[in-house]
């Protein structure tokens, strides 16, 4: 496929708008509860914009359509970001986002499949997503269904042995309908990943397990689109996109705050965050 310079810049502008809306939705949801994994949500907003605005084959009003691409969020605490992306994709109504985390809401703070249209699995206990993705991909291929399976996992999740069981399984079975996306924010619950349990060199590990691995700046839309295009064309082995992301990306107040897995945001800071996001977007 050839794309002109104009087409590519239009594509990036469209994705930049989508990422902006996802970030704004996430900040609004964070403010509703006065908490949330807002740092991570802002960090993965660009990835989710590319995935939901252009990569996934979905029918927004038919979330159980058999031909859909499956996106598995194994990191349940990132649900705040996924809800924003589902709103962007038209799967849920943006007005519903204000119920985030409230009693009776379809949008609980940790993602659960039985609550939310478009949420394929219940995440939260880490290390499950890629194993389930392996079975879905094997099953779809067996049934002749061309749908693809994506799994967003975190670098902390690479601590779990089951992730590597599944990495072996996908490679052994040549599952080129699987795309793993690893959000490397270099931070986990007890501190920096490098100090908790070292996972680098991440790309070398995936390659040694038989995966086609690409590593990009996960907040660079041009790099992300090029990488997703390459992975989609790749055949014969599963693909992994390793994304180095910045916690709080797009909101300098949060980008520069001391790094924490669960970022505290004071009540008056949500508006500042929103203002800074708008300011960055208009630049």
């Amino acid at each position, binding site marked *: 496929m050839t794309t002109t310079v104009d087409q590519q810049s239009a594509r990036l502008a469209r994705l930049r708008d989508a990422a902006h809306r996802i970030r704004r939705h996430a900040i609004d949801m964070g403010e509703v509860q006065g908490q949330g994994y807002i740092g991570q949500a802002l960090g993965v907003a660009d990835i989710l914009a590319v995935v939901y605005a252009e990569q996934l084959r979905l029918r927004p009003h038919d979330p159980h359509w058999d031909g859909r691409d499956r996106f598995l969020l194994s990191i349940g605490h990132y649900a705040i970001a996924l809800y924003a992306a589902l709103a962007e994709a038209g799967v849920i109504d943006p007005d519903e986002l204000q119920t985030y985390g409230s009693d009776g809401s379809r949008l609980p703070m940790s993602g659960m499949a039985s609550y939310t249209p478009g949420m394929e*699995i*219940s995440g939260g206990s880490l290390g499950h997503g890629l*194993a*389930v993705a392996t079975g879905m991909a*094997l099953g779809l291929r067996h049934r002749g269904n061309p749908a693809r399976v994506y799994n967003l996992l975190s670098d902390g999740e690479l601590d779990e042995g*089951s992730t590597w069981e599944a990495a072996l399984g996908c490679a052994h079975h040549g599952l080129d309908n699987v795309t793993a996306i690893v959000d490397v924010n270099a931070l986990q619950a007890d501190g920096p990943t490098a100090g908790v349990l070292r996972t680098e060199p991440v790309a070398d590990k995936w390659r040694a397990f038989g995966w086609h691995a690409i590593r990009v700046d996960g907040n660079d839309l041009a790099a992300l689109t090029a990488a997703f295009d390459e992975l989609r064309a790749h055949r014969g082995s599963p693909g992994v996109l390793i994304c180095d992301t910045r916690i709080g990306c797009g909101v300098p107040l949060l980008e520069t705050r001391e790094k924490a897995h669960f970022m505290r945001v004071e009540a008056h800071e949500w508006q500042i965050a929103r203002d800074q996001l708008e300011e960055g977007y208009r630049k």
Partner: protein
Amino acid sequence: MTTRLTTSAMIASFADPGQKTTSAPFGHALVRLADERPEIVGLSADLAKYTDMHIFRDAHPDRFFQLGMAEQLLLGAAAGMAEVGLVPFASTYSVFATRRAYDFLCLDIAEPNLNVNVVGALPGLTTGYGPSHQATEDLAILRGMPNLTVVDPCDSVEIEQCVPALAAHPGPTYLRLLRGNVPTVLDQYDYRFVLGKAAELRTGRDVVLISTGLMTMRALAAADRLAADHVDVAVLHVPTIKPLDTDAVLRAADTDRLVVTMENHTIRGGLGESVAATLAFAGKGRGILPIALPDEFLAAGALPTLHDRYGLSTDAVVDRVRGALGT
């Protein structure tokens, strides 16, 4: 005459000498089911040959998926296959399915209530290996898991009948698999497996044996022996451990007869405690004689030796019942 085994082999038979057996009933039943239902698939974690899944693998190679010695992947992948419309049977040893991959059975299979059928071989004391392979507490582990149906079959006849029933049940199941040359006992009785139902295999006025799994085979043998002493023994077979057929249990146990529970499982958290709780919760609390494995890590050894030592052999059962009756 069969020589009595005296070695602690992993793969061993608990069939009595000269007993009629059937080879790999699970594997053959799964093949027959798969011939009729194209969505049936089989998965294994490097134990197809030892869980009778190899019969299915050889008959339907395109529908068999090898996941390697990776039980978390086995159950996570089985969930994924069910999510896309297949009906998986995933086999490994019970110890690995329950102890090692619990979180995957719980969150990927049971919580979304998927039609995944987990098949665990070497349940309870059915291997001469020690605690690494003896799943003596699998029922205790799994009874607390919502949505999960748990089945402990008696023999080859029951395994053949329950395989299609497990696939037809919309939710997740766990089968305590008897593999290899499996005793064939229930062909002598007018019996049909019904998921969730207990069955009175024989009536009796003096004693009622409430048994599950291979212990029903021992219960029937013990009842015959006791009949020779003019002790009239009933046998209620309870193949579905969860959900328990509490109506049948209450009908059988709310009685003047000696009530005995029999299970190939630790005394903690299995059939005996389920029956006791059923009676107490119904306000019918009473004494029960529990025949079960002790709350210990068991020894290695030959199965006949171990079944005698830990009280599961027919001789041991007869002695316990006679002792309780004071005869």
